[in-house]
């Protein structure tokens, strides 16, 4: 059930959506493991 809910959160109209990390530590760990740079977006939720 959780898997199905998570899939619904990341799929819209057949296109994938950006799945954001929310913690710097996790993002850096992923970046190092996947050899990818980090896109850091500071936003105002309004």
């Amino acid at each position, binding site marked *: 059930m959780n898997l199905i809910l998570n899939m619904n959160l990341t799929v819209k109209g057949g296109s994938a959506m950006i*799945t954001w990390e929310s913690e710097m530590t996790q993002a850096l760990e992923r*970046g190092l493991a996947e050899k990818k*740079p*980090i*896109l*850091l*977006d500071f*936003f105002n939720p309004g």
Partner: protein
Amino acid sequence: MGAVTYPDEKVTDFVMQRMVPLQVQADKPLADEFKVKWTPTIVVLDYYGKEHHRTVGFFPPEEFIPSLLLGMGKAGFDADRFDDAIQLFDKLLAEYPKSGAAPEAIYLRGVSCYKSTHDAGPLKEAYEKLKAEYPQSEWTMRAQPYSLL
């Protein structure tokens, strides 16, 4: 960004395939660490957490991807990985030649070529390309001394 740029399919594919996306509210402590004063503020970091590129304000999809490519190229440039940087600048210039990021990419491509070969030719070529294609760009001004090489 959340209404227009991030839902764009090309942006989504680019970000998910080539970067680790991290989104943080501007009222969190991390925003103070990065001295964020306005949103959206977009920062490109290497995987050690070092900043290489920053923009403030809205970018539509056709400007956002080249801005990210520029940031990734600058990360390579800053780390002396000039071949990687040149590859990213070339991709930007081939796919988004009319973007706002293009003039800086031309400039940094020329510098990257010079630093990896010690041949001054690419610096002059960068200036000539900037002068011909982006005469009003600040990067044309910055490259102007290379006309004398």
